[in-house]
């Protein structure tokens, strides 16, 4: 066990944990966050995605030691001043997802993608999503939400 300092959703937390523990379990069990979610534990699905320095990262594959000192944002941390992030607004507007268990991966990967590439082509979008799983298969709505978020960002730019 050792004490690590984690900056999550703008707040710094001291946690006394096994430094090899995946970030996922520290966020859920030590900080009591409901997102990210456990999906596979082997980096194949994306349900445990968080943003680390604005990169979409699988928190089941990053140790708490490697996450220390970095800027970590979880799904619940995307809202700013009580307002949903525009990417979240787009997903809500498109009525995307069935169970929604996977959506940490899709929403946060979409956010990271659009930050880097505000107007992705269909092929670029599919490529950035290829390593995510949505078992309910709500892909049609997911793609529509990304297009909507991209368009609304360009309109307001």
């Amino acid at each position, binding site marked *: *066990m050792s004490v690590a300092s984690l900056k999550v959703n703008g707040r710094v937390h001291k946690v006394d944990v*096994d430094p090899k*523990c*995946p970030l996922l*379990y520290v966020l*859920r*069990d030590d900080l*009591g966050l*409901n*997102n990210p*979610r*456990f*999906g*596979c*534990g*082997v980096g*194949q*699905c994306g*349900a445990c995605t968080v943003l680390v320095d604005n990169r979409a990262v699988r928190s089941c594959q990053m140790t708490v030691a490697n996450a220390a000192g970095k800027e970590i944002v*979880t*799904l*619940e*941390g*995307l*809202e700013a001043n009580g307002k*949903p992030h525009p990417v*979240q607004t787009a*997903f*809500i507007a498109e*009525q*995307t*997802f*069935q*169970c*929604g*268990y*996977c*959506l*940490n991966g899709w*929403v946060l990967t979409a956010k990271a993608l659009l930050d880097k590439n505000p107007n992705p082509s*269909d092929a670029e*979008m*599919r*490529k950035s*999503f*290829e390593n*995510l*799983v*949505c*078992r*309910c*298969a*709500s*892909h*049609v*709505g997911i*793609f529509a939400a990304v297009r909507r978020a991209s368009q609304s960002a360009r309109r307001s730019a």
Partner: protein
Amino acid sequence: MAPQLAVSRREFVKDAGGLLIGFSLLDSSVLPRVLAAGSPETVSAPSPSRLDAWLRIDKEGLVHVFTGKPEIGMGVSTAYAQIVAEELDVPLDHVQLVMGDTASTANQGGVGGSTSIMLGSKPLRNASANARYLLLQMAAQRLGVPAEQLEVKDGVVRVKSSPTKSVSYAELAGVGDLNDALKVSGDGFSLNVEGAGKPKDPSAYTVVGKPVPREDLPPKILGHFQYITDVRVPGMLHGRVIRPSGVGATFVSVDESAAKAIPGFVKTVVNGNFVGVVADKEWAAIQAAKALHVTWTEPKALFPEQKDLYAYMRSAPVKATKETLRRGDAAAALSSAAKKLEASYEFPFQSHATMGPGCAAADVHTDGITTVWSGAQKPHDLQKGFAELLRVPIDSVHVIWVEDAGSYGRPGFEDTAADAVLLSQAVGKPVRVQWSREDMTAWGTKGPAVICDLAAALDAQREATAVQFTSRAFSGADTMFRPSSAGNFLGAMLAGIPNTTGMNEFAQWGVESPAYSFQNILATAHVLPAFFDGPSPMRTTHLRDPEGPATSFATESFMDEIAAAAGVDPIEFRLKYIDEPRAKAVLTAAAQKAGWDTRPSPKKTAEGGDIARGRGVGLSTRNGTYVGTIAEVEVNRKTGTVHVTRFVCAHDCGLIINPEALRTTIEANLIQSLGRSLKEETMFDRSNVTSIDWITYPVARASDVPERVEVVLIDHPEIPSSGAGEPSSRATAAAIANAVFDATGARIRQAPLTPARVKAAMDTIHSA
């Protein structure tokens, strides 16, 4: 965060005997999904004959609805709220649902068979209509005018001729004891109630039929939603299970020295062949499970080789046979046919492979009240099953449903909950279990493998005169889809409790799925004995539309084969042999939307280059729902890779409650079943499932999604709603296979349509 407290049922009913009870103890901001563990008086299900078992109105005017049907991700909670708001004339956001809590909801059989709207909405609609009727009686008395002179809008009752004279539902709440007895009929899925108040005529609907946004999506997308994974019971420990090294392997010994060294280790639990470990945190439990050195006897090589699966199924003894349809004399027509067609279709075992691998929490007290939190589809059955497992009265088990990942049938969430029960019982503390990915994909239940043999007779004029269907399949319910007995659960089976309630469920044609109007039809279904009779990773049970995708793959591919032999366009052929206008209408609507190119398949003129393009159709009919699916595909001639570029799906399920939620349900069914058609196949060796994760059990990914997905909704307000959860999964595999045939002339009769199978089929034609 601890599970939030809501008012108990006892507190609901103690201050008034009637319909309207003040909710003084209930903070309306409290999430009603996670109710507290109950006291002995609170855990028995309410009698459905009381109106307040279904809904109550509080002093704020909020309508609290209680239903034994959970939400499994397709928006049924919003649809229910629409139905209640419609009948009561209250604002939609005044309706709050409690779902699947065995202590506060009537037993409606849980979710299954695409019946949540078709059957499950009936008692809610009728109870709401009756509540409105009673409220109007009360208001009439209060306002001094006959009820006929009153109208209701947004929960306020007004005198029509003098709208300033009014009283709100909120003001009426808590007023008095009312005659709230309802007439009960049916049980389980069919449970219904009726009172003096009758529902509205659909022509008067203003909320039902509207594309109301789903209430569950904003909290999910904003990250505020609480799933089963987020239930945190005070003092809760974390468990993991360790499954046998293969089928038939039994427990020999355990060396826990390394596991004990993990900080937070609590206990190793061994109960027969059920092995688990409990620790203070989830990560500690995962590490301890890895560190536990369990010795098993050598697994028995009980499964056939994967490559021999279908040969094994053909040679296996038949356990039961059922004739599901007989019209005319198919055998005679076949023997005198001018042309006889025969084809066999094979559909593999498939895994539920839910997105979350199953999670549950249990707080077992065999001398008091046991509480189990689970996202399984049938909480009231779970209550009965756990009472039997723990050998306690049913009223001392309280199952609280909390939404899990999408379940698609009986995926193993039931088994996860049983693992939590067994571990909690062993350590005497609340235990949460979340399975590993491998626990779910490898050891979760499976949809059964199915073989269908078809034959058809054509006369000299190429008229189809007979069709014969014979299936050989594992039962769709060797593990009973109702988890209402102790032997239903994997953990219990491993602990030595036999599974005695499995039943023969047939891969059938002609019952749920009415066949075509051929003069002569014979449909027969054979069920095979279990792949392994006992605790096995190949336990078969319901996976989205139990055998529908497999039998529809066969029958709808075969319709195309007959059409091709007759030289007729596949849609024209179907229209000719179907009487039901609604079945015809979905085909016609899909064809029109797709701009269907009317001609026989396969295409006569092939394009140059590596890519062949084609279109195919499939029809699905199930319990009053009709679906016509058209797929357009690109087939890579060199690799055999199939990409679906477009789906058009026309869908008729009678009265539509929420067209937006229906559309997204259909879109997702199309993509999920695309994955099942092209990729999904549970792989195994002689003693284990080898499809254990998302690499070894691939499902539809972003690159597989068609460029265009178009849904045509056909609304029939005059026809009661039928189901929509599953029917649009059925016809996809055949529509794709028919499109591949159209593009290439190669007929693929084994699912999934992997590149290797498609390439092999193309090579066969070219070498012929």
